[in-house]
Protein backbone atom coordinates (compact mmCIF):
# COMPACT_ATOMS: atom_id res chain seq x y z
CA UNK A 1 0.00 0.00 0.00
CA UNK A 2 1.35 3.41 -0.91
CA UNK A 3 0.73 6.33 1.37
CA UNK A 4 0.49 9.52 -0.70
CA UNK A 5 3.27 12.03 -0.42
CA UNK A 6 2.97 15.44 1.08
CA UNK A 7 5.56 17.86 -0.19
CA UNK A 8 5.90 19.70 3.09
CA UNK A 9 9.41 20.96 3.68
CA UNK A 10 8.68 21.93 7.28
CA UNK A 11 11.03 20.44 9.80
CA UNK A 12 8.98 18.47 12.30
CA UNK A 13 11.17 16.62 14.78
CA UNK A 14 10.71 12.86 14.47
CA UNK A 15 10.20 10.63 17.51
CA UNK A 16 13.09 8.73 19.05
CA UNK A 17 13.63 5.25 17.58
CA UNK A 18 12.71 3.42 20.81
CA UNK A 19 9.39 5.30 21.05
CA UNK A 20 7.99 3.63 17.93
CA UNK A 21 6.50 0.10 17.86
CA UNK A 22 8.94 -2.12 15.99
CA UNK A 23 6.41 -3.17 13.36
CA UNK A 24 5.81 0.49 12.48
CA UNK A 25 9.42 1.61 12.36
CA UNK A 26 9.81 3.26 8.94
CA UNK A 27 13.41 3.78 7.90
CA UNK A 28 12.32 5.02 4.48
CA UNK A 29 11.39 8.39 6.00
CA UNK A 30 13.70 10.84 4.20
CA UNK A 31 13.78 13.09 7.25
CA UNK A 32 15.91 10.55 9.14
CA UNK A 33 18.91 11.61 7.11
CA UNK A 34 17.90 15.26 6.93
CA UNK A 35 17.69 15.46 10.73
CA UNK A 36 20.72 13.19 11.16
CA UNK A 37 18.88 10.90 13.56
CA UNK A 38 19.14 7.73 11.46
CA UNK A 39 21.74 5.80 13.54
CA UNK A 40 19.39 4.77 16.38
CA UNK A 41 16.63 3.73 13.98
CA UNK A 42 18.93 1.38 12.11
CA UNK A 43 20.63 0.08 15.25
CA UNK A 44 17.21 -0.94 16.52
CA UNK A 45 16.48 -2.87 13.33
CA UNK A 46 19.90 -4.55 13.34
CA UNK A 47 19.45 -5.66 16.93
CA UNK A 48 15.74 -6.52 17.02
CA UNK A 49 14.59 -7.19 13.47
CA UNK A 50 17.47 -7.73 11.03
CA UNK A 51 14.99 -8.77 8.33
CA UNK A 52 12.19 -6.28 8.84
CA UNK A 53 8.93 -6.04 6.91
CA UNK A 54 6.97 -2.79 6.68
CA UNK A 55 3.61 -3.43 5.00
CA UNK A 56 2.81 0.23 4.21
CA UNK A 57 4.96 3.27 3.51
CA UNK A 58 4.98 6.12 0.98
CA UNK A 59 7.09 3.74 -1.13
CA UNK A 60 4.86 0.70 -0.69
CA UNK A 61 5.66 -2.44 1.29
CA UNK A 62 9.33 -3.35 1.66
CA UNK A 63 11.79 -5.53 3.53
CA UNK A 64 14.75 -3.85 5.23
CA UNK A 65 18.09 -5.67 5.34
CA UNK A 66 20.32 -3.92 7.87
CA UNK A 67 23.20 -6.21 8.91
CA UNK A 68 26.52 -6.29 7.04
CA UNK A 69 26.58 -10.01 6.22
CA UNK A 70 22.93 -10.12 5.14
CA UNK A 71 23.47 -7.17 2.80
CA UNK A 72 26.49 -8.90 1.31
CA UNK A 73 24.38 -12.01 0.74
CA UNK A 74 21.58 -10.14 -1.03
CA UNK A 75 23.93 -7.93 -3.05
CA UNK A 76 25.98 -10.82 -4.40
CA UNK A 77 23.00 -13.00 -5.39
CA UNK A 78 21.62 -11.33 -8.49
CA UNK A 79 19.69 -14.44 -9.46
CA UNK A 80 17.65 -14.36 -6.25
CA UNK A 81 17.42 -10.57 -6.10
CA UNK A 82 16.80 -8.70 -9.34
CA UNK A 83 17.88 -5.08 -9.89
CA UNK A 84 15.10 -4.45 -12.37
CA UNK A 85 13.39 -2.11 -13.01
CA UNK A 86 14.90 0.44 -10.61
CA UNK A 87 17.40 0.42 -7.72
CA UNK A 88 15.89 3.04 -5.40
CA UNK A 89 13.12 2.27 -2.94
CA UNK A 90 10.29 4.09 -4.74
CA UNK A 91 8.91 3.07 -8.12
CA UNK A 92 9.59 5.21 -11.14
CA UNK A 93 7.43 8.17 -12.01
CA UNK A 94 6.32 8.28 -15.63
CA UNK A 95 8.88 10.89 -16.63
CA UNK A 96 11.70 8.90 -15.02
CA UNK A 97 11.07 5.60 -16.80
CA UNK A 98 14.66 5.46 -17.97
CA UNK A 99 16.71 2.34 -18.62
CA UNK A 100 20.17 2.16 -17.10
CA UNK A 101 22.54 -0.76 -16.62
CA UNK A 102 22.64 -0.47 -12.83
CA UNK A 103 18.95 -1.45 -12.98
CA UNK A 104 19.39 -4.36 -15.41
CA UNK A 105 20.21 -8.01 -14.80
CA UNK A 106 22.67 -10.05 -16.90
CA UNK A 107 23.23 -10.41 -19.76
CA UNK A 108 22.17 -6.89 -20.81
CA UNK A 109 23.79 -5.35 -17.74
CA UNK A 110 27.13 -6.94 -18.56
CA UNK A 111 27.17 -5.71 -22.16
CA UNK A 112 26.40 -2.10 -21.30
CA UNK A 113 28.66 -1.90 -18.28
CA UNK A 114 31.58 -3.33 -20.24
CA UNK A 115 31.15 -0.64 -22.87
CA UNK A 116 31.96 2.14 -20.42
CA UNK A 117 33.96 0.65 -17.57
CA UNK A 118 37.25 1.23 -19.38
CA UNK A 119 37.08 4.98 -18.81
CA UNK A 120 37.57 4.55 -15.08
CA UNK A 121 39.75 1.44 -15.27
CA UNK A 122 42.78 1.73 -12.99
CA UNK A 123 45.17 1.78 -15.95
CA UNK A 124 43.59 5.02 -17.21
CA UNK A 125 43.55 6.62 -13.79
CA UNK A 126 47.31 7.01 -13.48
CA UNK A 127 47.10 9.32 -16.49
CA UNK A 128 44.33 11.36 -14.85
CA UNK A 129 46.07 11.78 -11.50
CA UNK A 130 48.27 14.70 -12.56
CA UNK A 131 45.31 16.61 -13.93
CA UNK A 132 43.30 15.99 -10.78
CA UNK A 133 46.17 17.12 -8.57
CA UNK A 134 46.54 20.32 -10.56
CA UNK A 135 42.83 21.09 -10.26
CA UNK A 136 42.69 20.25 -6.58
CA UNK A 137 45.64 22.58 -6.01
CA UNK A 138 43.97 25.38 -7.89
CA UNK A 139 40.69 24.99 -5.98
CA UNK A 140 42.45 24.89 -2.60
CA UNK A 141 44.72 27.85 -3.42
CA UNK A 142 41.72 30.04 -4.17
CA UNK A 143 39.85 29.38 -0.92
CA UNK A 144 39.44 32.27 1.51
CA UNK A 145 41.67 31.97 4.56
CA UNK A 146 40.41 32.78 8.05
CA UNK A 147 36.82 33.46 7.03
CA UNK A 148 33.77 31.21 7.01
CA UNK A 149 32.63 29.66 3.71
CA UNK A 150 30.58 26.68 2.45
CA UNK A 151 32.92 23.72 1.83
CA UNK A 152 30.22 21.90 -0.15
CA UNK A 153 29.88 24.62 -2.75
CA UNK A 154 33.49 25.75 -3.01
CA UNK A 155 35.30 22.41 -2.86
CA UNK A 156 33.08 19.31 -3.04
CA UNK A 157 30.83 20.45 -5.88
CA UNK A 158 33.58 22.28 -7.72
CA UNK A 159 35.98 19.34 -7.79
CA UNK A 160 33.38 16.74 -8.76
CA UNK A 161 31.92 18.91 -11.53
CA UNK A 162 35.38 19.43 -13.05
CA UNK A 163 36.00 15.68 -12.97
CA UNK A 164 32.63 14.88 -14.55
CA UNK A 165 33.21 17.38 -17.36
CA UNK A 166 36.50 15.65 -18.16
CA UNK A 167 35.03 12.14 -18.11
CA UNK A 168 32.27 13.16 -20.50
CA UNK A 169 34.29 15.49 -22.71
CA UNK A 170 31.66 18.06 -21.69
CA UNK A 171 32.19 21.81 -22.25
CA UNK A 172 34.14 22.85 -19.16
CA UNK A 173 32.39 26.21 -18.73
CA UNK A 174 28.98 24.45 -18.59
CA UNK A 175 30.07 21.86 -16.02
CA UNK A 176 27.63 23.02 -13.33
CA UNK A 177 24.79 21.85 -15.54
CA UNK A 178 25.95 18.28 -14.89
CA UNK A 179 25.57 18.80 -11.16
CA UNK A 180 22.15 20.37 -11.62
CA UNK A 181 20.88 17.51 -13.78
CA UNK A 182 22.26 14.95 -11.36
CA UNK A 183 20.56 16.66 -8.41
CA UNK A 184 17.29 16.79 -10.33
CA UNK A 185 17.49 13.10 -11.30
CA UNK A 186 17.90 11.89 -7.72
CA UNK A 187 15.41 14.32 -6.19
CA UNK A 188 12.19 12.55 -7.15
CA UNK A 189 9.84 12.61 -4.14
CA UNK A 190 8.09 9.38 -5.11
CA UNK A 191 11.40 7.54 -5.54
CA UNK A 192 13.68 8.82 -2.77
CA UNK A 193 11.55 11.15 -0.64
CA UNK A 194 13.47 14.22 -1.75
CA UNK A 195 11.90 17.55 -2.56
CA UNK A 196 11.66 18.72 -6.15
CA UNK A 197 9.21 20.43 -8.48
CA UNK A 198 8.19 17.88 -11.15
CA UNK A 199 7.96 20.49 -13.91
CA UNK A 200 11.43 21.77 -13.20
CA UNK A 201 12.71 18.20 -13.18
CA UNK A 202 11.09 17.33 -16.49
CA UNK A 203 12.50 20.44 -18.09
CA UNK A 204 15.97 19.66 -16.68
CA UNK A 205 15.85 16.06 -17.96
CA UNK A 206 14.77 17.35 -21.37
CA UNK A 207 17.64 19.80 -21.47
CA UNK A 208 20.06 17.07 -20.38
CA UNK A 209 18.89 14.71 -23.12
CA UNK A 210 19.05 17.46 -25.75
CA UNK A 211 22.52 18.62 -24.72
CA UNK A 212 23.97 15.12 -24.69
CA UNK A 213 22.36 14.22 -27.96
CA UNK A 214 24.03 17.32 -29.45
CA UNK A 215 27.34 16.25 -27.94
CA UNK A 216 26.89 12.72 -29.30
CA UNK A 217 26.32 13.99 -32.86
CA UNK A 218 29.22 16.42 -32.56
CA UNK A 219 31.61 13.62 -31.50
CA UNK A 220 30.30 11.37 -34.28
CA UNK A 221 30.88 14.13 -36.84
CA UNK A 222 34.41 14.73 -35.53
CA UNK A 223 35.21 11.05 -35.86
CA UNK A 224 33.68 10.89 -39.33
CA UNK A 225 35.91 13.84 -40.28
CA UNK A 226 38.93 11.73 -39.37
CA UNK A 227 39.75 12.96 -35.86
CA UNK A 228 41.38 10.22 -33.78
CA UNK A 229 38.95 8.67 -31.26
CA UNK A 230 39.14 9.98 -27.71
CA UNK A 231 38.48 8.18 -24.46
CA UNK A 232 35.58 10.11 -22.99
CA UNK A 233 32.44 8.21 -22.03
CA UNK A 234 30.50 9.36 -25.10
CA UNK A 235 33.11 8.08 -27.51
CA UNK A 236 33.50 4.81 -25.63
CA UNK A 237 29.78 4.22 -26.04
CA UNK A 238 29.96 5.14 -29.73
CA UNK A 239 32.85 2.79 -30.39
CA UNK A 240 31.34 -0.26 -28.72
CA UNK A 241 29.29 -2.78 -30.69
CA UNK A 242 26.61 -3.09 -27.98
CA UNK A 243 26.09 0.63 -27.41
CA UNK A 244 26.99 2.32 -30.70
CA UNK A 245 23.27 2.82 -31.50
CA UNK A 246 22.36 3.91 -27.99
CA UNK A 247 21.11 7.28 -29.22
CA UNK A 248 18.36 5.49 -31.13
CA UNK A 249 17.04 4.14 -27.81
CA UNK A 250 16.25 7.42 -26.00
CA UNK A 251 15.31 5.90 -22.62
CA UNK A 252 18.53 3.90 -22.51
CA UNK A 253 20.58 6.81 -23.80
CA UNK A 254 19.41 9.28 -21.17
CA UNK A 255 19.24 6.58 -18.49
CA UNK A 256 22.85 5.50 -18.82
CA UNK A 257 24.10 9.08 -18.99
CA UNK A 258 22.17 9.97 -15.85
CA UNK A 259 23.57 6.89 -14.17
CA UNK A 260 27.15 7.89 -14.98
CA UNK A 261 26.59 11.50 -13.91
CA UNK A 262 24.92 10.57 -10.63
CA UNK A 263 27.50 7.86 -10.02
CA UNK A 264 30.31 10.38 -10.20
CA UNK A 265 28.54 13.25 -8.51
CA UNK A 266 26.72 12.66 -5.23
CA UNK A 267 29.06 9.92 -4.14
CA UNK A 268 32.40 11.67 -4.36
CA UNK A 269 30.93 15.06 -3.47
CA UNK A 270 29.52 13.86 -0.19
CA UNK A 271 32.60 11.84 0.71
CA UNK A 272 34.66 15.02 0.25
CA UNK A 273 32.36 16.87 2.65
CA UNK A 274 31.94 13.88 4.96
CA UNK A 275 35.67 13.55 5.56
CA UNK A 276 36.00 17.13 6.78
CA UNK A 277 32.96 16.70 9.01
CA UNK A 278 34.18 13.38 10.45
CA UNK A 279 37.61 14.78 11.29
CA UNK A 280 35.87 17.56 13.23
CA UNK A 281 33.77 15.06 15.18
CA UNK A 282 36.94 13.07 15.95
CA UNK A 283 39.68 15.74 16.07
CA UNK A 284 42.28 13.33 17.52
CA UNK A 285 42.16 11.59 14.12
CA UNK A 286 43.36 14.79 12.45
CA UNK A 287 46.33 14.80 14.83
CA UNK A 288 47.08 11.23 13.73
CA UNK A 289 46.83 12.32 10.10
CA UNK A 290 49.23 15.24 10.55
CA UNK A 291 51.67 12.94 12.33
CA UNK A 292 51.50 10.30 9.60
CA UNK A 293 50.23 11.35 6.15
CA UNK A 294 50.91 7.76 5.06
CA UNK A 295 47.54 6.99 6.64
CA UNK A 296 45.71 8.84 3.84
CA UNK A 297 44.80 5.78 1.68
CA UNK A 298 43.44 3.96 4.72
CA UNK A 299 41.60 7.10 5.84
CA UNK A 300 39.99 7.38 2.40
CA UNK A 301 38.39 3.95 2.84
CA UNK A 302 37.29 4.88 6.35
CA UNK A 303 35.73 8.13 5.05
CA UNK A 304 33.82 6.19 2.40
CA UNK A 305 32.54 3.74 5.04
CA UNK A 306 31.68 6.51 7.48
CA UNK A 307 29.84 8.65 4.96
CA UNK A 308 28.17 5.88 2.90
CA UNK A 309 27.08 8.47 0.33
CA UNK A 310 24.38 6.23 -1.14
CA UNK A 311 22.25 4.98 1.75
CA UNK A 312 20.54 2.07 0.04
CA UNK A 313 19.96 -0.07 -3.05
CA UNK A 314 16.77 -1.96 -3.71
CA UNK A 315 16.11 -5.39 -5.23
CA UNK A 316 13.07 -7.55 -6.07
CA UNK A 317 13.08 -11.19 -4.93
CA UNK A 318 12.83 -13.55 -7.91
CA UNK A 319 11.74 -16.50 -5.76
CA UNK A 320 10.86 -17.18 -2.13
CA UNK A 321 13.96 -16.69 0.04
CA UNK A 322 14.36 -17.67 3.71
CA UNK A 323 16.41 -15.31 5.87
CA UNK A 324 16.59 -15.36 9.68
CA UNK A 325 13.51 -17.59 9.80
CA UNK A 326 11.39 -15.23 7.70
CA UNK A 327 10.21 -15.78 4.16
CA UNK A 328 10.75 -13.05 1.63
CA UNK A 329 8.19 -13.83 -1.08
CA UNK A 330 8.81 -13.79 -4.78
CA UNK A 331 8.10 -10.27 -6.04
CA UNK A 332 8.73 -8.57 -2.68
CA UNK A 333 10.75 -5.38 -2.54
CA UNK A 334 14.01 -5.78 -0.60
CA UNK A 335 16.04 -2.76 0.50
CA UNK A 336 19.70 -3.14 1.48
CA UNK A 337 20.56 -0.31 3.85
CA UNK A 338 24.28 0.16 3.25
CA UNK A 339 24.51 2.97 5.81
CA UNK A 340 23.32 0.50 8.47
CA UNK A 341 25.58 -2.39 7.43
CA UNK A 342 28.53 -0.01 7.59
CA UNK A 343 27.76 0.55 11.29
CA UNK A 344 27.16 -3.13 12.11
CA UNK A 345 29.07 -3.88 15.30
CA UNK A 346 28.93 -7.60 14.50
CA UNK A 347 31.44 -7.11 11.70
CA UNK A 348 33.02 -3.69 12.25
CA UNK A 349 34.91 -3.06 15.48
CA UNK A 350 33.70 0.14 17.23
CA UNK A 351 31.58 0.87 14.20
CA UNK A 352 30.38 4.23 15.54
CA UNK A 353 33.93 5.52 15.76
CA UNK A 354 35.72 7.16 12.86
CA UNK A 355 39.26 5.72 12.94
CA UNK A 356 41.65 6.62 10.14
CA UNK A 357 44.01 3.77 11.05
CA UNK A 358 41.22 1.18 11.20
CA UNK A 359 42.27 -2.38 10.44
CA UNK A 360 40.46 -3.79 7.34
CA UNK A 361 39.10 -0.33 6.47
CA UNK A 362 38.56 -1.46 2.89
CA UNK A 363 35.95 -3.98 4.00
CA UNK A 364 32.94 -1.67 3.83
CA UNK A 365 29.66 -1.81 1.89
CA UNK A 366 29.65 1.63 0.26
CA UNK A 367 30.68 0.32 -3.17
CA UNK A 368 28.24 -2.57 -2.99
CA UNK A 369 29.19 -6.19 -3.72
CA UNK A 370 28.60 -8.52 -6.65
CA UNK A 371 28.12 -7.66 -10.30
CA UNK A 372 26.75 -4.17 -9.61
CA UNK A 373 29.76 -3.16 -7.52
CA UNK A 374 30.71 0.46 -8.06
CA UNK A 375 32.56 0.92 -11.33
CA UNK A 376 34.24 4.19 -10.30
CA UNK A 377 35.58 2.98 -6.95
CA UNK A 378 39.22 3.52 -7.85
CA UNK A 379 38.60 6.96 -9.30
CA UNK A 380 36.73 7.95 -6.14
CA UNK A 381 39.54 6.70 -3.93
CA UNK A 382 42.12 8.48 -6.04
CA UNK A 383 40.27 11.81 -6.01
CA UNK A 384 39.93 11.69 -2.23
CA UNK A 385 43.55 10.63 -1.73
CA UNK A 386 44.89 13.46 -3.90
CA UNK A 387 42.58 15.96 -2.19
CA UNK A 388 43.84 15.04 1.27
CA UNK A 389 47.48 14.96 0.17
CA UNK A 390 47.10 18.50 -1.17
CA UNK A 391 45.15 19.67 1.90
CA UNK A 392 47.95 18.51 4.20
CA UNK A 393 50.47 20.42 2.10
CA UNK A 394 48.60 23.66 2.72
CA UNK A 395 46.39 23.66 5.77
CA UNK A 396 46.86 22.97 9.46
CA UNK A 397 43.17 22.47 10.17
CA UNK A 398 39.80 22.79 8.48
CA UNK A 399 37.43 23.84 11.21
CA UNK A 400 33.67 23.25 10.95
CA UNK A 401 32.24 26.50 12.33
CA UNK A 402 28.48 25.85 12.22
CA UNK A 403 25.84 23.17 11.94
CA UNK A 404 25.82 21.35 8.62
CA UNK A 405 22.60 21.10 6.62
CA UNK A 406 21.76 17.61 5.35
CA UNK A 407 19.92 16.53 2.21
CA UNK A 408 16.35 15.28 2.57
CA UNK A 409 16.38 11.86 0.90
CA UNK A 410 16.46 8.19 1.80
CA UNK A 411 18.96 7.53 -0.99
CA UNK A 412 21.50 10.34 -1.14
CA UNK A 413 23.21 10.68 2.23
CA UNK A 414 24.74 14.06 1.85
CA UNK A 415 25.39 17.63 2.84
CA UNK A 416 23.62 20.73 1.55
CA UNK A 417 26.08 22.96 3.34
CA UNK A 418 29.07 22.68 5.64
CA UNK A 419 30.39 25.98 6.99
CA UNK A 420 34.14 25.86 7.58
CA UNK A 421 37.11 28.08 8.29
CA UNK A 422 40.60 27.23 7.13
CA UNK A 423 43.67 27.53 9.32
CA UNK A 424 46.80 27.61 7.17
CA UNK A 425 50.05 25.89 8.11
Amino acid at each position, binding site marked *: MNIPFTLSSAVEPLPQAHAIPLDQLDVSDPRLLEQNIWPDYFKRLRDEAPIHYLPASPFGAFWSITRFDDI*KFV*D*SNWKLFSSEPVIVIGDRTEDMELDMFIAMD*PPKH*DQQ*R*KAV*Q*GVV*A*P*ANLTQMEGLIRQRVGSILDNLPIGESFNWVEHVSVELTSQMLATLFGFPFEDRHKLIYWSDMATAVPEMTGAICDPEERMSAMGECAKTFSGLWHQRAAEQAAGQPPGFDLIQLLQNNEDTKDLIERPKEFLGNLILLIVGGNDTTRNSISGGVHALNQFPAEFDKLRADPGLIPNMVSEIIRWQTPLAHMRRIATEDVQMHGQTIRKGDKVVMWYLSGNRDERVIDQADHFMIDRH*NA*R*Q*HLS*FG*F*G*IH*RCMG*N*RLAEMQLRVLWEEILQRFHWIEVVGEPEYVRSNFVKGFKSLPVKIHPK
Partner: protein
Amino acid sequence: MPQITFIEYSDKSHCVDAETGKSLMQIAIDHGIPGIDADCGGSCACGTCHVIVHETWQGKLPTAQEEEMAMLDMTPEPQPGSRLSCQLTVTDALDGLVVRLPEFQM
Protein backbone atom coordinates in the same frame (compact mmCIF):
# COMPACT_ATOMS: atom_id res chain seq x y z
CA MET B 1 53.14 -27.98 3.47
CA PRO B 2 52.69 -26.96 -0.19
CA GLN B 3 54.79 -24.09 -1.45
CA ILE B 4 53.20 -21.35 -3.50
CA THR B 5 54.90 -18.50 -5.34
CA PHE B 6 53.30 -15.07 -5.75
CA ILE B 7 54.98 -12.75 -8.24
CA GLU B 8 54.19 -9.04 -7.91
CA TYR B 9 53.63 -6.92 -11.02
CA SER B 10 57.14 -5.53 -10.46
CA ASP B 11 58.46 -9.15 -10.76
CA LYS B 12 59.29 -9.35 -7.06
CA SER B 13 58.73 -12.95 -6.07
CA HIS B 14 57.44 -14.38 -2.76
CA CYS B 15 57.62 -18.12 -2.13
CA VAL B 16 55.54 -19.08 0.91
CA ASP B 17 54.52 -22.21 2.80
CA ALA B 18 50.76 -22.46 2.43
CA GLU B 19 48.47 -24.10 4.95
CA THR B 20 46.11 -26.54 3.24
CA GLY B 21 42.38 -25.82 3.52
CA LYS B 22 42.86 -22.03 3.41
CA SER B 23 42.11 -19.95 0.34
CA LEU B 24 44.94 -18.66 -1.78
CA MET B 25 43.72 -15.14 -0.96
CA GLN B 26 44.03 -15.82 2.77
CA ILE B 27 47.56 -17.17 2.29
CA ALA B 28 48.53 -13.96 0.49
CA ILE B 29 47.02 -11.79 3.26
CA ASP B 30 48.62 -13.90 6.02
CA HIS B 31 52.03 -13.46 4.41
CA GLY B 32 51.59 -9.74 3.72
CA ILE B 33 51.87 -10.09 -0.06
CA PRO B 34 51.12 -6.62 -1.49
CA GLY B 35 48.62 -6.25 -4.33
CA ILE B 36 45.66 -8.20 -2.94
CA ASP B 37 42.88 -6.05 -1.48
CA ALA B 38 40.18 -8.67 -0.78
CA ASP B 39 37.60 -5.98 -0.02
CA CYS B 40 34.75 -8.46 0.48
CA GLY B 41 36.79 -10.71 2.77
CA GLY B 42 36.63 -13.76 0.53
CA SER B 43 33.03 -13.99 -0.70
CA CYS B 44 33.61 -13.83 -4.44
CA ALA B 45 31.84 -10.47 -4.44
CA CYS B 46 34.37 -7.71 -5.14
CA GLY B 47 36.97 -8.98 -7.61
CA THR B 48 39.90 -7.41 -5.74
CA CYS B 49 41.90 -10.61 -5.12
CA HIS B 50 42.53 -11.20 -8.82
CA VAL B 51 45.60 -13.33 -9.67
CA ILE B 52 46.89 -14.72 -12.95
CA VAL B 53 47.74 -18.40 -12.80
CA HIS B 54 51.00 -19.35 -14.53
CA GLU B 55 50.35 -21.03 -17.87
CA THR B 56 51.85 -24.35 -16.80
CA TRP B 57 49.20 -24.55 -14.07
CA GLN B 58 46.15 -23.32 -15.92
CA GLY B 59 44.64 -26.73 -16.74
CA LYS B 60 45.42 -28.21 -13.34
CA LEU B 61 43.15 -26.17 -11.09
CA PRO B 62 39.46 -26.72 -10.37
CA THR B 63 37.48 -24.72 -12.94
CA ALA B 64 35.86 -21.44 -11.93
CA GLN B 65 32.20 -21.53 -10.90
CA GLU B 66 29.61 -19.22 -12.43
CA GLU B 67 29.85 -16.58 -9.66
CA GLU B 68 33.60 -16.34 -10.07
CA MET B 69 33.28 -16.06 -13.86
CA ALA B 70 30.73 -13.27 -13.44
CA MET B 71 33.05 -11.24 -11.21
CA LEU B 72 36.10 -11.88 -13.41
CA ASP B 73 34.06 -10.71 -16.35
CA MET B 74 34.06 -7.22 -14.82
CA THR B 75 37.87 -7.02 -14.64
CA PRO B 76 38.98 -4.34 -17.11
CA GLU B 77 42.11 -6.26 -18.07
CA PRO B 78 41.31 -10.00 -17.98
CA GLN B 79 44.01 -12.45 -19.03
CA PRO B 80 44.19 -16.17 -19.72
CA GLY B 81 44.66 -17.67 -16.27
CA SER B 82 42.75 -14.91 -14.45
CA ARG B 83 41.22 -16.24 -11.22
CA LEU B 84 39.92 -14.89 -7.94
CA SER B 85 42.30 -16.16 -5.29
CA CYS B 86 39.53 -16.37 -2.67
CA GLN B 87 37.95 -19.15 -4.74
CA LEU B 88 41.06 -21.37 -4.86
CA THR B 89 41.58 -23.66 -1.88
CA VAL B 90 45.11 -24.76 -1.06
CA THR B 91 45.64 -28.54 -1.33
CA ASP B 92 48.79 -30.67 -1.52
CA ALA B 93 48.17 -30.90 -5.26
CA LEU B 94 48.94 -27.17 -5.51
CA ASP B 95 52.53 -27.59 -4.33
CA GLY B 96 54.71 -25.48 -6.63
CA LEU B 97 51.86 -23.29 -7.94
CA VAL B 98 52.96 -19.94 -9.38
CA VAL B 99 50.58 -16.98 -9.69
CA ARG B 100 51.22 -13.42 -10.83
CA LEU B 101 49.51 -10.33 -9.47
CA PRO B 102 47.91 -7.88 -11.90
CA GLU B 103 49.08 -4.28 -12.17
CA PHE B 104 45.83 -3.08 -10.59
CA GLN B 105 42.93 -4.63 -8.75
CA MET B 106 39.53 -3.51 -10.02
